[in-house]
């Protein structure tokens, strides 16, 4: 269940990343600006849902800490993209978030 939700989240993250990448290159692309934001909100919402479900099932300090670090990374990316001078590094951060999602998937695969 968690692996399935994480897979959907990963897909959202990839779509967000692609839209963001295109948005940076073509700033006048309104549809991609909107896509990037909508998919971004969906990704973060799904991340929070997943974190809640996962922590409820297996509560542990390290477990909770890992999810919090992932959430901080998401927030850092948003903050970075909204800061004018370091906006160019937003795509690096976006790529890092994809790795975060991969970790979420692989740590929740059925054994």
């Amino acid at each position: 269940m968690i692996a399935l939700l994480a897979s959907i989240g990963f897909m959202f993250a990839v779509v967000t990343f692609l839209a963001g990448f295109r948005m940076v290159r073509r700033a006048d692309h309104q549809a991609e600006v909107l896509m990037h934001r909508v998919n971004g909100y969906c990704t973060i919402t799904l991340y929070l849902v997943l974190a809640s479900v996962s922590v409820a099932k297996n509560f542990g300090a390290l477990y909770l800490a890992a999810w919090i670090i992932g959430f901080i990374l998401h927030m850092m990316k948003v903050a970075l993209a909204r800061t004018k001078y370091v906006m160019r590094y937003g795509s690096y951060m976006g790529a890092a978030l994809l790795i975060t999602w991969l970790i979420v998937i692989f740590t929740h695969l059925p054994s």
Partner: protein
Amino acid sequence: MRFPFTGKNSVLKGMDRPAGEAGGPVGEAGWPVGMIAGVCLFLSFFLFSVSWAKDIIVPTDRSTIQGAVDSAAPGDAVVIEDGRYAENVVITKAITVRGRSGYAGVIIEAKNAELPVVKVHGVTGAVVTGVTAKGSNAYGIHFYRSSGCTLSNNRAAANSTGIYLEYSNNNTVSGNVAEGNANEGISLFSSNNNLLSGNNANANSEKGITLLSSSGNTLTGNTADSNYWNGITLWSSNGNTIRNNTALNNTYAMVVSYSEDNDITDNNMMRRIYYLLPVALVYFAIIVYFIEKRLFIIFFSAPSVEAS
């Protein structure tokens, strides 16, 4: 004066038959008395020698499964009602042990964890069906020197080995679930000509289905997924038929060593299929991206978008 027993209607008239007439004494219906006596003798022998198969209900007739097994005669059935039973059951005669509503309701846990939960020892023609065997550091269900037995629709979980056939030939093992065991799900050792069909040996800590020094067995329609090491293992086992089995997400789908003349065809095998999952997801996400982009352009289009 007439003698009372020698007249025309005397009951002794049959004894007046002339000497030398064929056949013995004849009854009123005309059957030879010898034949009637023979039939009666045969029927009495049949009734006393044949014991009619009966059902022994646990815990209604006997409080324990072993008690019911001990009191059963060959051909009887021990029917177990739903519930949890802490026992190590040993079956040494050709009886049927059956869970009333299947393995989900009838759970037998090892009372002594060092012994098998259910052991079929030296039996020809026993049947074990519809029970869950769990919690043994040895085996969930152990067939030892048994032949012609049937093991169907059982579950063996959280044991060292789920189902273990040792020196047992010509048995049928079908529709069983052997999962979450510390070593193998289903293992055969020196056991030949058995039929394993439709079993699930998934998520075991070592291997799914293992054949060791076992020949002439048929494995068909079994599933051995998500085991830590091998899905299906053949070691020093010859002439087995392995068809239409599935072994996914194991470290090794099938390992065959020191084995010859095995017919291995039409099996569905892939190692760790989940490793390919992100690749597929990326491709799928790119398709979603283009579809989504088209939809956004249609519903939220700006002139600049159309121009681009």
